[in-house]
């Protein structure tokens, strides 16, 4: 059975959740092979988890250069693995880095690329949900080694232990095309899940009124174990940082539950969240467009409704 290469997303010695989703998708097409690109020792720390998630093979692409350069180490490692294995497909997360890695790799291998797939079947047909979820498109790549970028949270991880056999992979980075990373500033995520992969998202809009009052959104998010999001209007008003923006120009989310607080539901916002499984909304304006797509809507003041909901959620948990 052909190998299906999966680029492993990892941070601080732990495998990110998207990796389990990619390995599950890979199993439909062939034999899942995880490609770990990291500093020496990374593969050792991830091996048990990758094996449990389903990796039959683990390529260890380790170098002190990883982390110093943007994406080109991952491109070089995946290209080296692909040249040896003639894979049935190469799966990457549909993230900023995933797109950069996938784009370069597609040119290097001459492979067709499908971005932002929400599903992938055993024949390699990918499903995309485009124009903010208003169209479903199925696409297939006709070249060898198709590259597919999978949206986080679109496929459920179904862990099924693999052999986890580790193979070292040699690769080198061309300094001519390298971009050097001099510093990384990542906001401490705290205890909240990451926005793009969260099962529940609570977002606030212009109706929240101020940065201080966003605490009401955060309180409900924490009660629900949810990630916090914000509409573009809220971000532009300075209520919440840009990396939490949900919508056409921010993050696209597809959680099990999306809670919209004080969000009118402009088309650009809906484009980033209307594939959520269940949508509930609280807004003062009974004519707010968000109610057209909400499974349950409350016309009222979010500062009355959200705290009461938080209390009920906490009471049910207790």
């Amino acid at each position, binding site marked *: 059975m052909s190998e299906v290469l999966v680029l492993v997303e990892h941070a601080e010695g732990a495998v990110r959740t998207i990796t389990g989703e990619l390995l599950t998708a890979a199993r439909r097409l062939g034999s899942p092979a995880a490609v770990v690109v990291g500093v020496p020792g990374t593969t050792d720390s991830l091996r048990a988890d990758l094996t449990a998630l389903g990796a039959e093979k683990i390529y260890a692409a380790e170098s002190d250069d990883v982390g110093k350069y*943007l994406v080109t180490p991952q491109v070089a490692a995946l290209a080296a693995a692909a040249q040896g294995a003639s894979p049935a497909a190469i799966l990457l997360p549909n993230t900023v880095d995933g797109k950069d890695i996938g784009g370069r790799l597609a040119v290097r291998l001459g492979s067709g690329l499908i971005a932002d797939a929400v599903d992938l079947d055993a024949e390699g047909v990918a499903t995309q949900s485009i124009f903010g979820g208003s169209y479903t498109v199925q696409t*297939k790549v006709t070249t060898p080694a198709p590259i597919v970028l999978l949206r986080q949270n679109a496929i459920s991880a179904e862990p099924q232990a693999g052999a986890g056999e580790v193979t070292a992979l040699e690769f080198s980075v061309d300094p001519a095309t390298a971009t050097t990373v001099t510093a990384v500033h990542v*906001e401490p995520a705290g205890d909240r899940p990451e926005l793009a992969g969260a099962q529940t998202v609570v977002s606030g809009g212009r109706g929240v009124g101020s940065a201080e009052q966003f605490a009401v959104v955060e309180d409900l998010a924490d009660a629900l174990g949810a990630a916090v999001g914000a509409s573009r209007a809220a971000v532009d008003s300075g209520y919440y940082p840009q990396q939490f923006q949900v919508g056409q120009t921010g993050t696209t989310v597809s959680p099990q539950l999306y809670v919209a607080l004080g969000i009118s539901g402009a088309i650009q916002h809906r484009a980033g969240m209307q594939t959520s499984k269940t949508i509930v909304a609280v807004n003062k304006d009974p004519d707010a467009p968000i109610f057209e797509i909400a499974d349950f809507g409350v016309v009222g003041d979010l500062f009355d409704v959200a705290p*009461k909901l938080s209390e009920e959620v906490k009471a049910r948990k207790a």
Partner: protein
Amino acid sequence: MDIAVLVKQVPDTYSERKLRDDGTLDRAAADAVIDEIDSRGVEIALQLTEQHGGEVTVVTMGPDRATETLRKALAMGAHQAVHVVDDGLAGSDALQTSAALAAALKTLTFDLVITGNEASDGKSGTVPAMLAERLGLPSVSSARAVSVDGSTLSAEKIVDGGYAEVTASLPAVLSVSEKIAEPRYPNFKGIMAAKKKPLTTLGIAELGLENTGGAAAPCQVVSSSPKPPREAGQKVTDDGTGGSQLAAFLAAERLI
């Protein structure tokens, strides 16, 4: 420094966007506008050439009417334009588009290529990296701030959960996020001047392209269909029990 800026004409995200039966964009269904992210790319290019000298060339690939988008960028202040246009390019996928744009860029001299981080219609966001690979250049994606010192590009780029500071040597490919700059509005003088600025068209033959168009695309659309619109569910007016009713709904759906 000379800068090439890639711009794309897209269906307005404020209007209803449709696909035709063959899975290609129905360009007649919605108003066509310059993609907002690209107007920000033009703006930062103008700011950089105002600081460092040099000229801005805007480049697009698209049907005849995509000229409108080039004129808009020229009216903002870009110096000249290149239009990659050929019926044989219709239905190109990202890999083919990057080949055509790379070939067009090779006809220019530039120190920097600027693009939007992803188009609002295709949203693949992979063309900038493909271009960098084809041109053999370093790349920086989703920049929110950028500066140039001699032959070094420094940028703050968006990463998951925050941002990174990066440097690359010029020439390079830079894709910008929406935080990079607020685009200027063309004034009357700019709009009049734009009509006289040079606009070159390039087709498949001039660019020496092979395997062009939808039929030769590495990505083939198998099927496409509009999704039934989401239906509005229950709506209640808060009479003091709104929070409890919402909780009851979520409990019934096993979401809490």
